[in-house]
C-alpha cells in the first residue's frame, strides 16, 4: 500500500497542473490580502461631530410649554454643553456616552446620564411650578453639575469618572430598581473603574471600542438570558449566548493587557479594526477554505478519470493489487496532497500577510476563549491555525471520497469536477441557511454538509443547527464517508476495460 501511495504521489506532484493551482492560490492570497475585505467601514455612529440642530431646537423650544418645555430644554442644554467642546475631544466622547439608552418595559432607562439628570433637577426646580424637587436636591444638583463642568473644563477626565462612579453607586441604593438594572449599573461602574485602573481616556481608539463592546455584549447576554427571542431554537440561543460571553472575556482581556490590536478573531468584535498580518493569518482557513476545496475536487476527480481516459488504468489493473487497495491508495494520496496544500496556504498567507501588513503583529499570540468555561486560551499562532486546519480535514476527506465516487461513476473529468463543485456550493452555502428553518431541521441535521466542519466545535463551541452535536457529526460523517468509499470500491471492482471503458 505504501508503495502504491508513493506511486500516486509521484503522479500528482509531477503534474504541472497541481503547481498551477498552487500558483493561483498565491495570487488569490495576495489579492485578497490587498483588497482586505475584513477591514470594516467606519461606524457612522462613532463620531463627535457638531450638533448642527441647536438653532432649530432653540426656535422649537419657544413653542413648547409645561413639562415638554422642561424636557426639551434639558436636552438642548445637554447638546449645548456637548457642542461647547472641540470635535474629537475627550469631553465630547465622554458626553457621547450619555446619549445611549436601553429600554425596559417601554421606558427609556438612562442610569449613566448623570449630567442630564442633574440638568433635569435644576430646570425642573427653576421652571416647574409644581416641581417635586426639593430645594436641597436642587442645591445638590447644582453643586454636582458644577463639579462635572469643572472636571470637563479643567480637562480632568479622572475626576469626571469619579463623579460618575459616585453617582451610579448612589442610584444603586434607590428603591425602585430591579436586579437587571443593578447589573447594568454595575457594568457601567466596572467600565469606569477599568478606565481609571488602565488609564484609558475617552477617545476613538481600539481600547475605547473594547470598552464599548464589553458593555454592549453584556447587554446582549442579559437580553438573551432574560428575554430570549422565541423564533430561534434553544441551540441557536445558547450558541449566541456563549459567543457574547466570549466576546466579553476577550474585550476585558484586551483592556487589561492594553492591547491595541483586534483580538476578536472569528468573533468580529471590533468595527474600528485595523487588519494586520496576525488577524489575516488567524483567519487563513476562513478566507481560503475554497482554495483547498478546489484543489481537493480537482485532485480526486482526475485521479481516476484521467487514468481511465488516458488508458493507464490498464497498467494499474494488471498489477498484483486488489482494486480496493488501489482506491484506498488514491484516497490516501489525495489526503496527503491536501495536507501539503494546507501547509502551503498557511505559509504563503504568513509571508504575504507579513509583507503587506508587517511582521510585527505576529508577536502577539492567538488569544481565544473557551466557550464552555469562559477561560481564555493562549496559543502559538501556527498552533491555532493548524488546529483549525485539522478540524476542517474531515470535510476535505469527505469531499475527496465523494469526488472519487463521481469520477468512478462518470469518466468525464470536466463534468465530474463541475458537478462536484456545484453540489459542494449548494451543500456548503445554501443548505445551512435552510437548516435554520425549524421545519426542515429534522432532515437537515443529517446533511453531511451541516456536520463536516469540525472547526465549529473548537474550544467548546456548538453547532448553530439544533440537533447537531460533536458526536452526532462524527457519526454522520463516518456514515457518509463509508457509503462513498463502499460505492466507489464496488463500482471500481466491477469496472471492465474495453476500448470504450465502462
Amino acid at each position, binding site marked *: 500500500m505504501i508503495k502504491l501511495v508513493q506511486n500516486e504521489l509521484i503522479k500528482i506532484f509531477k503534474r504541472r497542473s497541481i503547481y498551477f493551482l498552487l500558483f493561483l492560490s498565491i495570487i488569490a492570497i495576495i489579492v485578497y490580502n490587498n483588497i482586505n475585505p475584513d477591514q470594516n467601514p467606519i461606524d457612522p455612529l462613532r463620531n463627535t461631530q457638531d450638533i448642527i440642530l441647536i438653532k432649530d431646537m432653540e426656535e422649537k423650544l419657544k413653542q413648547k410649554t409645561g413639562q415638554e418645555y422642561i424636557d426639551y430644554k434639558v436636552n438642548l442644554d445637554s447638546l449645548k454643553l456637548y457642542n461647547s467642546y472641540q470635535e474629537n475631544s475627550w469631553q465630547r466622547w465622554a458626553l457621547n456616552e450619555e446619549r445611549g439608552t436601553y429600554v425596559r418595559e417601554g421606558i427609556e432607562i438612562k442610569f449613566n446620564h448623570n449630567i442630564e439628570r442633574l440638568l433635569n433637577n435644576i430646570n425642573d426646580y427653576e421652571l416647574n411650578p409644581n416641581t417635586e424637587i426639593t430645594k436641597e436636591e436642587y442645591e445638590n444638583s447644582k453643586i454636582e453639575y458644577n463639579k462635572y463642568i469643572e472636571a470637563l473644563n479643567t480637562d480632568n477626565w479622572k475626576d469626571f469618572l469619579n463623579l460618575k462612579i459616585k453617582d451610579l453607586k448612589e442610584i444603586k441604593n434607590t428603591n425602585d430598581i430591579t436586579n437587571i438594572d443593578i447589573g447594568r449599573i454595575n457594568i457601567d461602574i466596572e467600565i469606569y473603574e477599568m478606565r481609571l485602573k488602565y488609564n484609558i481616556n475617552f477617545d476613538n481608539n481600539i481600547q475605547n471600542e473594547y470598552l464599548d463592546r464589553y458593555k454592549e455584549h453584556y447587554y446582549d447576554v442579559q437580553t438573551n438570558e432574560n428575554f430570549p427571542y422565541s423564533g430561534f431554537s434553544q441551540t441557536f440561543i445558547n450558541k449566541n449566548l456563549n459567543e457574547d460571553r466570549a466576546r466579553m472575556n476577550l474585550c476585558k482581556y484586551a483592556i487589561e493587557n492594553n492591547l491595541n490590536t483586534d483580538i476578536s478573531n472569528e468573533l468580529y468584535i471590533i468595527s474600528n479594526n485595523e487588519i494586520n498580518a496576525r488577524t489575516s493569518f488567524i483567519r487563513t482557513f476562513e478566507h481560503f477554505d475554497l482554495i483547498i476545496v478546489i484543489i481537493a475536487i480537482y485532485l480526486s476527480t482526475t485521479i481516476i478519470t484521467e487514468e481511465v481516459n488516458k488508458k493507464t488504468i490498464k*497498467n494499474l489493473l494488471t498489477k498484483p493489487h486488489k482494486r480496493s487497495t488501489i482506491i484506498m491508495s488514491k484516497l490516501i494520496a489525495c489526503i496527503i496532497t491536501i495536507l501539503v496544500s494546507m501547509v502551503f496556504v498557511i505559509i504563503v498567507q504568513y509571508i504575504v500577510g507579513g509583507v503587506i501588513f508587517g511582521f510585527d503583529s505576529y508577536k502577539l499570540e492567538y488569544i481565544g476563549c473557551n466557550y464552555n468555561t469562559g477561560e481564555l486560551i493562549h496559543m502559538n499562532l501556527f498552533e491555532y491555525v493548524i488546529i483549525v486546519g485539522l478540524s476542517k480535514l474531515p470535510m476535505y476527506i469527505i469531499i475527496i471520497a465523494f469526488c472519487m465516487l463521481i469520477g468512478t461513476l462518470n469518466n468525464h473529468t470536466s463534468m465530474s469536477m463541475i458537478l462536484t463543485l456545484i453540489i459542494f456550493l449548494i451543500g456548503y452555502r445554501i443548505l445551512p441557511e435552510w437548516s435554520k428553518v425549524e421545519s426542515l431541521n429534522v432532515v437537515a441535521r443529517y446533511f453531511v454538509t451541516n456536520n463536516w466542519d469540525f472547526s465549529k466545535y473548537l474550544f467548546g463551541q456548538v453547532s448553530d443547527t439544533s440537533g447537531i452535536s460533536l458526536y452526532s457529526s462524527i457519526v454522520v460523517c463516518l456514515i457518509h464517508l463509508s457509503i462513498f468509499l463502499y460505492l466507489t470500491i464496488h463500482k471500481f471492482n466491477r469496472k471492465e476495460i474495453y476500448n470504450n471503458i465502462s
Partner: protein
Amino acid sequence: MKVLECNNLKKQVKNKIIVQDISFSVNKGDVVGLLGPNGAGKTTIIKLILGLIKISEGRVLINGYNIEKDFVKAIDKVGAIVESPDLYMYLSGYDNLKITANNYKNISKDRILEVARIVGLDNRIKDKVSTYSLGMRQRLGIAEAIINSPELLILDEPTNGLDIEGTIEMRNLIKSLSNQGIAILISSHNLTEIDNLCNRIIAIKSGKMVTDETIDEFKQISNESSYIFELNNVENVDKILQNYKFEIIDKNKIRIYISKEKVSELTKKFLTNNYQVYLVQEEQFTSEEAFIKKVGENKID
C-alpha cells in the same frame, strides 16, 4: 509445466457472444502466437486472461491460481502490454519504470536501469515519454512488462512501431526470454513475425478457436509433401506424370505431390524424356498462405 491455462473461456455481453470455447495452455518456454482477423476476439481473450474484463464462463489459471479468485497471486508473475503501452506521458521513462517497479517487491534501481538497457533506452530513460517516438514507447512498454522478471509475458503487437533494427532486437529479446523458460503469448497481425518467433499458433476466428498447433503443423496444409519442378517447358508432362498428382503453375513450373524418395526417380524421368530440369524445390507454405487456408479471409463480424 503449464504457466497459463484457459478452460472453456466465454465472454458474453448482453446477447452478443464475443468469444466462446477458448481452451489452450502455455507452458514454460513456449512462445505462442495468437492469430486472427480484426475483431476475432484476440484482445478480448487477453483481457480475460489479465482480469481486465469479467469472465462469463470458464476459468483462467496462471501458475495454478485462478485469475478471478486469487487475482493478486495469479497476476504477480505476469507482464503484459495490452493494445498499446500504457504510459504516463508527462513522466520520464525512469519514473514510469519506477512506478511499475513499486507494484512489486524487491525491484531495485539497478533492475530498472538494467531493463532500460535491455530495451535500448538507457540514454533516454530520464527524458519525458512525451518526447519519445512510437518505437521508443513500445520499448518502454516492453521494459515495464519484463521488469518483474515475469513467468508469463503477454505481448500485443510487440514490434509495432519498431524499425528494422529494433524489430530484430525485439525478436532476439523474446527468444532469449523464452530460452530462460518464460512463457510468452504474442498477439500479432504480422505473420512473418509469428513465424519467426513462435513455436505454436492459436488461430481465432469469430470468437472461436480454429486451431492450436505448432508452427510446422500449422503450415502443413495437407499430409502430402509437394515439390516444385522448374522445367524448360511443361508441354506434354501429363504423359510422364500419369501416376502422379500434379498442378501446372505456369509455362515452366509444375507442382507435383510426391514423397522425397520419388524425387530423384522423377527427375531422371524428365531428363530421359528430354526435358531440362532447372530447379527442384520442396514446397513450404508461408504462414500467410496457411492462415488464409485455415482461418479464412479477413472478415469482421
